[in-house]
């Protein structure tokens, strides 16, 4: 049954491609597709971080090509990879750098996302050196008074195993996850922010765009600078902020037709305003 579905979809893609080839005499780039020719349904699955962004891009894409349907599903980066491999989805979303065992997939980066350390707003500590962050996360410093704060035990907020923010954080600070002495383990960014906002002695790390937005909305958190560089979407954009991750969309085979058109569109300047609106950083300026 699923085979039939897939064949159908492939079939329609092939037809579409053939039509396009005939129509444009051999050139199959997205720009040469006219609105009437692009039609069909794209299924995109994967990282929940990317899902709102890609869904918004999909909506604008649909408005340009009324016969196209872009269905965005979430479920995590690994789900995106698995679904694309099985042919269950046309495009996968992966919110981290591609791994060595994923070389079989074709990855296209659409945006970047910085990872910054956050504290509660009332915490008097203004900056932490990299060594201090490492010492706090490995349990060598357990009280804020040792880093110039109040006399209060530190609540260490860590991310769950496998999350890409955890991976880039550990990679930058060169800590092994087995050495981390966490008091709270969280999943999504917003959970991290709410946890730190609700505990005056907590330290955590989250996506910078999200934290920046929440800070501006009056959520009692503050972003710390890392390695002397202030944490903001601006420093992530100009490349000076050291901790960041790429956000990818992936396909199993080299993209053609509708898939290619969508990927080209998602990488184009036309969507930079959407990327900023969702608090991520566009790849190129």
């Amino acid at each position, binding site marked *: 049954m699923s085979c039939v579905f897939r064949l159908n979809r492939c079939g329609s893609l092939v037809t579409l491609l053939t039509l396009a080839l005939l129509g444009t005499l051999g050139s199959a780039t997205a720009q040469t597709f006219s609105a009437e020719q692009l039609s069909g349904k794209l299924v995109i699955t994967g990282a929940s971080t990317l899902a709102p962004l890609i869904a918004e891009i999909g909506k604008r894409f649909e408005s340009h090509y009324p016969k196209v349907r872009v269905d965005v599903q979430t479920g995590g*980066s690994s789900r995106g990879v698995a679904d694309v491999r099985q042919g269950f989805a046309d495009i996968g979303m992966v919110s981290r750098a591609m791994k060595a065992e994923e070389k079989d997939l074709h990855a296209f980066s659409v945006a970047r996302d910085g990872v910054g350390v956050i504290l509660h707003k009332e915490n008097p500590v203004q900056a932490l050196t990299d060594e201090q962050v490492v010492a706090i996360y490995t349990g060598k410093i357990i009280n804020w008074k040792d880093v110039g704060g109040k006399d209060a035990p530190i609540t260490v907020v860590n991310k*769950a*195993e496998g999350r890409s923010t955890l991976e880039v954080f550990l990679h930058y600070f060169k800590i092994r*996850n087995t050495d981390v002495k966490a*008091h709270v*383990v969280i999943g999504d960014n917003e*959970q991290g922010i709410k*946890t730190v906002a*609700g505990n005056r002695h*907590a330290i955590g790390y989250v996506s910078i765009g999200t934290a920046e937005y929440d800070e501006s909305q009056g959520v009692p958190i503050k972003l710390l600078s890392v390695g002397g560089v202030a944490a903001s979407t601006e420093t992530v954009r100009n490349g000076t902020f050291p901790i960041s991750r790429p956000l990818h969309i992936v396909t199993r085979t080299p993209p053609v037709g509708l898939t290619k058109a969508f990927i080209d569109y998602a990488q184009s300047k036309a969507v930079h305003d959407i990327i900023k609106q969702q608090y991520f950083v566009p790849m190129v300026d």
Partner: protein
Amino acid sequence: MTSLSNNTLSRWSTDELLCWSLRGIATIAGTIVMLIVVFLIVEALPVLHHVGLLRFFTDPSWHPAEGLYNLTPMLWGTLFAMTGSVLIATPLGILSAVFCHYYAPSVLARPYRRLIELLAGVPSVVYGFWGLVVLVPLIAEIQPPGPSLLAGILILTIMILPTIALMADASLANVPQQYLRGAAALGLPRWATIRGVVFPAVRSGLFTGVILETGRAIGETMAILMVCGNVVQIPSTIFDPIRTLTANIALEMAYAIGDHRAALFVSGLVLLAMIVALVVSAEWVSRGRMYG
């Protein structure tokens, strides 16, 4: 005569038909359980194959990315959270139902029942959200870090309360009026009637309610994930954070690949084994008498 025998004949065949179609329908329900078990086993098989079941209980810690797969602390976490919440929710739920039937003026009973029905339908994410922004900071004031076994127990209690309360309520509604009149005629006061006459009569309903609420407590995921802290450890006080088996699956499934992913399905299997153990022991405790 012919018509009568025809009638009898058709009557019996209708009954037979009904019985067999009902059996068919019930088989579907059983099949779903089988399918889910098979699904879990198939997904967990790769890691069971080259790691073995034993290591899920003897490894030093849970760090699947580094090949360490100890599930024991999460098993305890699930057990503690479940036991705590069932112990609080069961009396509260039963008393709530008793309140509706025997204590509340009828003006209060109806809205109160509607209120509990609503509690049953609040999404777990709302409970979790509320727990995260209201309950956890409160607990953090008493004893940091805040997200803890206690927060989990309290949230779970609110979530499973409607199940036991509504089951108990429906059971109480079915206590025959003669029982109550008999008790009243004997001059038994209210609570004595409830304890001596009503509770024994509704044993089966209460028991089913407890089983269902326990199931819900074990299976709850999203709210628990938000308030429990999710640190893999055996808690020494109720203020320590814990991770349950369900939270483990939800927290890590999104980014897990290969053995890590399969290990999460082993969490699911362990959870299932736990439920089976519970159901079997409940059966043993009741020894079939509950359904008499």
